[in-house]
């Protein structure tokens, strides 16, 4: 009975992850379209960040499905997928730091390239790194909101804040069903964070 509940929860987890991945892909697409028109490099970096994030999410879903279909041989694959997922998230957040940093003239694309290498130069405590990076992103988006006071900037600030909450909740070790519920809460926070970006996109795409 309990194993059925666990499998049902894993399915919910995967559905949430797939939808979140699709939303991240949509943001990436619109940022890329915006880059195509404006040639603003930061929009290209923003697009790359969301693309890396969505690829990590889809990778985790595929890895988990592989685990569910062949659990006996999937240990190593799942281990790699989990580490790769954490690394890809960190890469995405590092790119967001450079993309959402205000100020144009001092910006160089080399920052984004250096940010991509960050996960390989630091400790394996991926969630801690992700949290630290996200704190910077959240503060930058808060400053942006304080500066422009638009609802679009508020959605972005709320989105990144929820992603931060998701990582804080995600630090808990899953040892039983109760702790898995907390982990699901972190997945839900991540989903709501990306949903906030989706609402922002929808609002921004409206004709006046």
């Amino acid at each position: 009975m309990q194993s059925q509940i666990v499998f049902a929860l894993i399915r919910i987890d995967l559905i949430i992850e797939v939808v979140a991945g699709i939303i991240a892909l949509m943001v990436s697409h619109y940022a890329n379209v915006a880059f195509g028109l404006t040639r603003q490099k930061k929009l290209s970096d923003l697009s790359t960040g969301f693309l890396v994030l969505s690829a990590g999410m889809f990778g985790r879903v595929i890895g988990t499905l592989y685990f569910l279909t062949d659990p006996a041989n999937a240990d190593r694959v799942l281990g790699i997928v989990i580490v790769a997922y954490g690394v890809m998230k960190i890469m995405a957040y590092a790119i967001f730091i450079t993309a959402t940093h205000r100020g144009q003239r001092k910006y160089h694309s080399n920052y984004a390239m250096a940010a991509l290498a960050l996960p390989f130069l630091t400790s394996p405590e991926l969630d801690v790194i992700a949290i630290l990076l996200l704190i910077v992103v959240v503060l930058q988006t808060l400053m942006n909101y304080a500066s422009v006071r638009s609802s679009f900037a508020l959605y972005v600030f709320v989105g990144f804040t929820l992603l931060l909450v998701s990582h804080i909740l995600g630090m808990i070790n899953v040892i039983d069903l109760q702790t898995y519920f907390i982990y699901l809460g972190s997945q839900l926070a991540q989903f709501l964070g990306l949903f906030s970006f989706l609402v922002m996109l929808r609002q921004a795409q409206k004709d006046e």
Partner: protein
Amino acid sequence: MSRKRAYRSKVRILADMLRTIQAEGEDGAGPTKILYAANLSHDRLTQYIEELIEKELIKELIDGDNRSYFLTQKGREFLIEYRKIERLSQAFGIDV
């Protein structure tokens, strides 16, 4: 004390010019109006107007010595798209 002028990308300047022309409505905008509103030098103005005409975003009407510029349908659509991109960029703190 010197004040730094904010950096404007080319696409932003073109959008500013189109907005000026749009604001003038059916009367169209003359070059002087566009020059002042978009804060451009005469050489830059001539260069960008040629580009806008070439891209069919505006059309030119010559009446004797007077020149007026009007927004085309493509120009109106460009401004709508640009506004959407501006909102998206602004949301992430990116200047376009």
